[in-house]
C-alpha cells in the first residue's frame, strides 16, 4: 500500500512540493494502492462523470418521486433563471438547480453516482456543470474535478465520517460541499492551499447540520440541503480565491466535525426520530406515506 496522504496538510504539502495539482496526487495514490493503470482509473472516472451528466439532464427534464414529496424544482429554477430575474446570479442558481436535479433523480430511485453518498450526490456535479460554462474546462479537467473532490472526501471518510447515520448531514452534504469547493478552486486556477481553505470555509458553515429525513426518505430536506450545499461551495470557493483563509486549519475543522457527529443525539442521525422528521407535518407525511402503520418520532 502506498498511501501518499492521510490528512489535508500532507495532501497540500505534497502537491505544493512537487508542483502538482491535488487531482494528480489523488490519481497517483489510486495507482499506488490499487495497482491499476492510469488509463483504467481515468476511464472509470470518465464513466462516473457520464452518469452524473445523464442524471442532471434527466432531472432538468423533470422527475417526481414515488411519494410525490420531491421533484420538479430543478425545472422551476431553470425557468426562473431564463426569466432573467435571478437575484443571486445565473451561475449560482444554475449550480443549485443542477444539484437539485441530481437529487430529484436519486429520490425517484434513478441512477446516480454517489459523491460521497447518494443523499449528497447533487453538490459536486451541480457545481461542476454550472462552472463549466464559465471556465470552459476540457473533459480531462472535468474528470480531475472529481479526483480533487475525491481526495478531500478520502481524508474526511478516513478521519471523520461521510455517513449521515454516523455523523449527521454535516458528514454528508457538509463533506460534499467542502469537496466541491476545493475542486472549484483548483479548476479556477487556485493553489492547493487555497483548495484546503475553500474546503475549510465550507465545512465550518455546515458544522452541526443534523440528518432528519422526513419519513426516513432521502427527499425532505435532503434535496434542498444539496441546493444550499452547492451555493455554499461556490461562495466559499470565491472567498478562498479572493485570498481569504480559515483561521482554523482544514484538518482541525474535519476533526471538529467528527466530534460534533459523535456527540449528536441518535434522534438526529438518520433515524427519522428528530428534527424536521418529528415536526407535526413531518409525522403526518410519514403516516400518510406508510398508511399510518408507522408514525415515527414522539
Amino acid at each position: 500500500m502506498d498511501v501518499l496522504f492521510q490528512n489535508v496538510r500532507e495532501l497540500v504539502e505534497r502537491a505544493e512540493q512537487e508542483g502538482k495539482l491535488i487531482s494528480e496526487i489523488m490519481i497517483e495514490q489510486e495507482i499506488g494502492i490499487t495497482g491499476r493503470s492510469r488509463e483504467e482509473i481515468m476511464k472509470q472516472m470518465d464513466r462516473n462523470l457520464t452518469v452524473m451528466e445523464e442524471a442532471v439532464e434527466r432531472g432538468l427534464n423533470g422527475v417526481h418521486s414515488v411519494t410525490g414529496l420531491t421533484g420538479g424544482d430543478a425545472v422551476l429554477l431553470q425557468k426562473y433563471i431564463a426569466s432573467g430575474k435571478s437575484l443571486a446570479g445565473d451561475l449560482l442558481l444554475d449550480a443549485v438547480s443542477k444539484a437539485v436535479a441530481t437529487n430529484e433523480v436519486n429520490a425517484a430511485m434513478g441512477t446516480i453516482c454517489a459523491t460521497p453518498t447518494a443523499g449528497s450526490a447533487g453538490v459536486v456535479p451541480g457545481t461542476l456543470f454550472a462552472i463549466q460554462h464559465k471556465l470552459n474546462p476540457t473533459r480531462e479537467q472535468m474528470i480531475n474535478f472529481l479526483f480533487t473532490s475525491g481526495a478531500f472526501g478520502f481524508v474526511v471518510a478516513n478521519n471523520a465520517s461521510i455517513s449521515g447515520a454516523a455523523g449527521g448531514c454535516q458528514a454528508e452534504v457538509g463533506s460534499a460541499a467542502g469537496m466541491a469547493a476545493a475542486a472549484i478552486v483548483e479548476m479556477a486556477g487556485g493553489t492547493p492551499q487555497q483548495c484546503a481553505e475553500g474546503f475549510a470555509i465550507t465545512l465550518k458553515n455546515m458544522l452541526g447540520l443534523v440528518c432528519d429525513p422526513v419519513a426516513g426518505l432521502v427527499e425532505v430536506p435532503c434535496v434542498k440541503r444539496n441546493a444550499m450545499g452547492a451555493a455554499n461551495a461556490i461562495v466559499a470557493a470565491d472567498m478562498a480565491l479572493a485570498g481569504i483563509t480559515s483561521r482554523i486549519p482544514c484538518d482541525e475543522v474535519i476533526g471538529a466535525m467528527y466530534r460534533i457527529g459523535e456527540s449528536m443525539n441518535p434522534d438526529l442521525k438518520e433515524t427519522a426520530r428528530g428534527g424536521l422528521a418529528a415536526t407535526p407535518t413531518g409525522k403526518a407525511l410519514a403516516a400518510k406515506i406508510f398508511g399510518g402503520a408507522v408514525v415515527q418520532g414522539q
Partner: protein
Amino acid sequence: MKFTSVFDIIGPVMIGPSSSHTAGAARIGRAARDLFGRQPKWAKIYLYGSFAETYRGHGTDVAIVGGLLDYDTHDERIKTAFEDAEKAGLSFEFIPEEAHKEHPNTTRIVMGDDEGEMSVEGISIGGGKIEISEVNGFKLRLTGGMPAILVVHDDRAGCIANVANCLAMHDVNIGHMEVSRIERGLTALMVIEVDQNIEDRVLQQISYIPHITKVSKINN
C-alpha cells in the same frame, strides 16, 4: 484506513436513494449470498439502528433482497426485487430490532435452504462501503474490497498450513489473513483476503482437506 480508493468516495454508480441504506444494503445482501454459496430459499433479515428505523423509506428492504438475488448496486431490477424474489423461490422476512449495535447501520441475515443455514452480519459504513462483521457467530472484519475465502475448520494443528499450501499450488497470493476460534480445540475460522477472484475448483480442493467443514468466498 477504512476507505482506500477514490471510487469509495466518487462512487458507486447506483440506484437511489441512499448510498448507505440502498447501495450498502445491496452489497451486504450480495456478500451474504456469496458466502452462502448459492441463492438461499429463505432469509430472516434483522435490522438495527438507523436501518431499523428508516429501512422502508430508503429502499433498504428491496436492496438487501436484490443483493440476495445477486443484483449489483446499479441494477435497475432492485426496484422489483420483492416480485423477483417470489419468482426465484426466495421467501424473506424483515425484523426491525430495538437492540443497539456498535454501528447504526447493521443488519444480520440468517438464510438457508434444504442443505444448510448461515448467519451473516454486515455494517454499512457510509458512501456504499460495507464490512462483514460476523459469520455464523464468528467475529471478523471483512471489507468486501478484496476477494476473500472463509474456511470453517476443526481447531487442529496443520489446518492453516494445508490451506495455505493449497492456495500456493494454485498461485494464489494471500494479502491478509485472520484466524479465530470460538473455543480451543473446537471450531475455528480462517479469513483469507486474496489478490484475485478464486475459481470454484480451488475452493473444492480446499474442502477436501481433512478437518475442513465449510469453505465459502466473496468475490470483488
